[in-house]
């Protein structure tokens, strides 16, 4: 029970800290006219955040079961690819190359089929190529969106 309670206290506290910062900023920044509306919001925000924190501390928060360790373990590689892709790959490798690599990496990692069978790898390469071809046709050809090129395209 205690660990479950902690699960709710931590995010509750984080949101309360955020609300406090927002409130503080809203009431100290100038010009006042531009911050009038944020002030109204921040007051409601901090009251609700406090209420939520109290519920968490007293163990009244029961909705949501937090993030188990297993989930985190499963998530870590995919999340790493995701972050690399969005914050580095898409811009510096080019949108299409970055996307191809990200798609291939995530698909291959989470695919339950064997990692040692050549046939499965061919299938993965084929699916990736087909998917990216559709994306290219849709965005570059039909919609004519101009994406960052990076080193390739």
């Amino acid at each position: 029970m205690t660990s479950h309670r902690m699960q709710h206290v931590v995010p509750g506290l984080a949101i309360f800290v955020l609300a406090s910062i927002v409130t503080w900023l809203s009431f100290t920044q100038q010009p006042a006219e531009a911050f009038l509306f944020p002030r109204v919001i921040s007051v409601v925000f901090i009251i609700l955040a406090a209420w939520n924190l109290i519920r968490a501390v007293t163990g009244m928060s029961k909705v949501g079961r937090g993030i188990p360790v297993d989930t985190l373990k499963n998530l870590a590689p995919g999340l790493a690819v995701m972050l690399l892709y969005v914050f580095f790959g898409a811009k510096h490798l080019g949108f299409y190359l970055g996307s191809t690599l990200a798609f291939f990496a995530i698909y291959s990692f989470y695919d339950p089929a064997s990692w040692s069978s050549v046939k499965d790898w061919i299938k993965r390469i084929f699916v990736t190529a087909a998917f990216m071809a559709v994306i290219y046709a849709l965005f570059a050809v039909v919609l004519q969106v101009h994406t960052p090129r990076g080193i390739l395209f």
Partner: protein
Amino acid sequence: MKKLFKTAVLATAALAVAATGSFAADYPDRPIGVAVSYGAGGATDFQARIVTMVAGNEDILGQPIYILNKPGAGGRKGWNWFATEAPADGYTMSAYNIPHFIAQSIKGGVKYSADSFEPIANWGSDPAVVVVGKDSKFNSMQDLIDYAKANPGKTTTSGAGLFVGHHIAALQIEKACECKLAYVPTKGGGAAAMKAVIGGEVLAGINNLSDAFRAREAGNVKILGVADLERNDFIKDVPTLKESGLDVDNSSVNFRGLMVPKGTPPEIIEKLAKQVPMMFAHARVAKRMKAGGSPMKIMNREEVQKMWADREEVLKELLKGL
């Protein structure tokens, strides 16, 4: 797998070499983007789409121009992006609106000033006009000013935002008549400001000539005055503010044109400065602009540079102490 990887690396390297091989000599070799700091369908967006539609002709640029909309905060969002993020390689241009971006940079809080950009050419000038609803009791600028003098701070006047052409015109009118209006910057640009006038939410409004012309054609508003030096061809019957006895010049006229970020190679700027005015002068462009009620004014790079410098001086004076 290993082999595949090797092939991929080789192919990448080959393409990278090929990509950097092209230089200013054969510029442009791919489509050029024009960032518009206002939403799709707005006056700037609409005109930018028309004036760039012949870019693909071989004797103009030989490559098409596409429009990127980056609306927000009266244009600040788009120009901030353009000043800080846009690549200075000639493949990203932006539409400018004078006096908007100069006034905003004087006022502060943005990441650009007139020095952040290199003008290419100007395509249009859209004067600010004073409009009132069709059933308004005001029939001339004099009526409006008389009311404003009798009721200081009660003459609600809508406009597209703070420190845009409409606001500058309102400030100039206040200065000239020595009276106080209540300028109401509306969210949602000129269209929302116009709705406030038509719906009788405000007593008067300052808006773009092109939009006001359309609204008058639709029978929704009366136009009382033009904030320009001369009467405008689209609305010959409307007097200038000067004629109505208000000392207001053309500082609020909304000039629109194209620019590139500072740091763009000089050869590219030169090429654009030569070709872009030809694009604006194209007969098809002129026809479409006229049809849309959008006054054109083509100026080359030198003229625009001078115009920017003049405007900056005038605006600094006007915005002093605000």
